[in-house]
């Protein structure tokens, strides 16, 4: 049975204030779909999923404001009715995935390299800080430079800086046509070069996936532009392109069925193999900028290799419980993180240890 919409701002605020008074940290819970990602953190669970519903949707302004507990699937269905979408194509990783969890984790899907990331589409936010205050930053307009951009700062902070109540977003029209073409390829290194070459040209490529001996490309836009690009790029048209990108986004492809540690590497797109594992064993998205790697290599060596290449790594799934899940920060940056955490959440109430063990 679907839960009904409710504004739980005051109830959540009361719980936060109580936690501050009693000095008992909280762990913020949506549906738990991103729980696998990153360190566990500590604290008493505080359910946010009851705070749900669409506050405001203006399709002709491309603006949506929605409460954090709203299921992502409901938001996507609402947008689809008006021919619109969340252009960063967020992974759900579970049937109940919420808006709050999506932005707290800051995850983006296959369309990211072409359209932008979760934080790119955030226009504003209402949140409760670690003093129990209700703050509104940004707004419901596309351009707004008043005040520090705390709304985008909250994205990917894993709830360590505050409790996200509502998010205002820029949405985009769905492309009028979409087609997936598949190429047989010989080597991944060569295919990365090809992808980078295409990304520098005005082609309507909105997703790419390099795995094993197949390179899949999604083309999106006006019917004419898609047809023209399909002719230009060649390859074979896939029968169920939509299903493929969905399964990739949700990590349901066979590639992801593996007990070994799964690493996400975020790299400059043209980076050659990191030599941690044969490059052909990996899966590459975002025209080379996001790579998935299954390796038993020591965490330190993966982090060092990613950093040396100008990017970073995340231990996404599996692996030793004791391993660092997120790329360690250089000391000066860690210090700034601690100070920022203290600026927003002085008594350390929200999700302690959920991002880094130091705060």
């Amino acid at each position: 049975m679907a839960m009904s919409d409710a504004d739980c701002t005051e109830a959540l605020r009361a719980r936060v204030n109580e936690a501050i008074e009693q000095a008992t940290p909280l762990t913020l819970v949506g549906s738990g779909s991103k729980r696998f990602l990153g360190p566990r953190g500590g604290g008493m669970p505080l359910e946010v999923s009851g705070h749900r519903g669409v506050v405001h949707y203006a399709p002709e302004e491309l603006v949506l404001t929605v409460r954090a507990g709203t299921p992502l699937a409901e938001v996507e269905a609402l947008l689809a009715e008006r021919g619109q979408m969340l252009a960063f194509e967020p992974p759900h990783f579970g049937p109940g995935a919420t808006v709050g969890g999506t932005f707290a984790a800051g995850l983006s899907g296959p369309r990211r390299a072409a359209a932008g990331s979760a934080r790119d589409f955030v226009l504003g936010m209402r949140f409760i800080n670690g003093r129990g205050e209700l703050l509104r930053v940004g707004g419901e307009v596309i351009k707004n430079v008043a005040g520090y951009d705390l709304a985008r700062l909250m994205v990917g902070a894993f709830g360590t800086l505050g409790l996200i109540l509502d998010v205002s977003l820029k949405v985009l029209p769905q492309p009028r046509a979409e087609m997936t073409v598949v190429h047989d390829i010989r080597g991944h290194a060569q295919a990365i070069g090809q992808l980078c070459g295409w990304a520098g040209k005005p082609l309507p490529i909105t997703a790419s996936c390099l795995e094993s001996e197949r390179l899949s490309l999604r083309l999106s836009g006006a019917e004419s532009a898609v047809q023209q690009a399909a002719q230009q790029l060649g390859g074979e048209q896939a029968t169920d392109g939509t299903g493929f990108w969905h399964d990739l986004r949700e990590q349901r492809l066979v590639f992801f069925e593996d007990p070994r540690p799964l690493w996400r590497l975020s790299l400059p797109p043209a980076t050659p193999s990191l030599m941690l594992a044969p490059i052909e064993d990996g899966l590459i998205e975002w025209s080379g900028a996001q790579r998935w790697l299954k390796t038993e290599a020591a965490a330190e060596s993966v982090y060092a290799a990613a950093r040396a290449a100008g990017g970073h790594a995340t231990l996404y799934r599996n692996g030793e419980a004791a391993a660092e899940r997120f790329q360690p920060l250089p000391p000066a940056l860690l210090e700034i993180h601690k100070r920022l955490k203290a600026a927003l959440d002085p008594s350390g109430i929200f999700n302690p240890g959920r991002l880094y063990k130091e705060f």
Partner: protein
Amino acid sequence: MSVLPERPEVPVSRRRELIAGLRALLPADVLLHESEDLHPYECDGLSCYRATPLAVALPHTVEQVQAVLRYCHARQVPVVARGSGTGLSGGALPLTDGVLLSLARLNSILDIDPVNRSARLQPGVRNLAISQAVAPLGLFYAPDPSSQIACSIGGNVAENAGGLHCLKYGLTTHNLLKLEVLTFEGERLTLGADALDAAGYDLLALMTGSEGLLAVVVEVTVKLIPLPETARVLLAAFDNVEAAGAAVGDVIAAGIVPGGLEMMDQLAIQAAEAFVHCGYPVGAAAMLLCELDGTAAEVEDGIARVEALLRARGATELRVSRNGAERAAFWAGRKAAFPATGRISPDYYCIDGTIPRRRLPQVLRRMQEFSEHYGQRVANVFHAGDGNLHPLILYDANRPGELERTEQMASDILKLCVDVGGSITGEHGVGIEKINAMCHQFSASELAQFHAVKQAFDPAGLLNPGKAVPTLHRCAEFGALHVHGGQLPHPDLPRF
């Protein structure tokens, strides 16, 4: 209430000592301290506010920037960073007791990486120079503020600069990969990465638009994107503003995201036409310029759809550019709207509010009422696609009372923007100009939170103090702060 920051007097002996100290650290050509040399640095693009700094430093190297910051940190001297000085909100206004740190000489393009589609730049590189340098590679840097010939990328980062193409291509914050910054303490930090995201908090987003209050940007890596195959612009005239506004909503609701979508009202159209003779429909109440870019087939298809939508809303005239020259001519008047307004009035005051677009008719009606009430004319240019309104209030500074009336009217307009759900600034920044208006947009808790964030980066509170975020004290005096029970929130926090 004056927006100018109140600064302590600097005794002559301390002034001498500080200048001697800086001279010892820096080559002779890097430090200006004679009063005639300081003159050109008294203001930025908002020239009605002026102040003379203690000294101006013009470093050639990042090491010299670091030396200035460390020295000023040790001596507790405030520092204001400046790019090209084109900002419109007084963000680079010097402080009388501080050093103005110009980054204009750090103006090299350090690296262009066509394969990874990025460019590494020193902060003084001009915005337009980036796109010019990479055009032969078929790439461009998207944000194009109107001052792009002169403004610097470092200043663009500080202000989160926009431009005509924000709806489709985003603001500065959407087009950056990495920043190298120096804190006031002189510590170097790398924010972002050469990859699409970085570990930890999104400090790249936080730094962008922070108006020089958090750190000094010494290197910027921007994203480059492929130049569209073609672009065409459609010019449409309307006999009422509401219809033009509704037409904009129709275009966007139909799933079209134009590269640029601009509106001008009658006074702005007439001023532009008188200035550049670009053939604008001077009898129209409002005019739209809608640019579509992409592949030739895509643009063709889009133009036909937009034409039909605009006709359905009663466009009285429709023209489509047939070639690059016509496209440039259509844009010429819009791009010259500010100087054109300068020709029909001795002075004008530019406002930068944003509003949800559906509120446009209401906002225009209220502005007309303000205009009649204060007796000042207003020309409107509007980034219609993204809700960023630039009313230009015409006035004559030589007539007693006109500037004050204009400022009061501007304040009313900004308040109106906030009240309909918008913001006091879409792309020009708060600086000192809108410091009082911030009290209307944000609560005491929100402002206190901003101050705490600044403190995390700049505990001494000496990087561009007094700009962008008002003190709660200022807001209380300005009369726009709601203080409960006579107590300011967080007595534990220092107030700058």
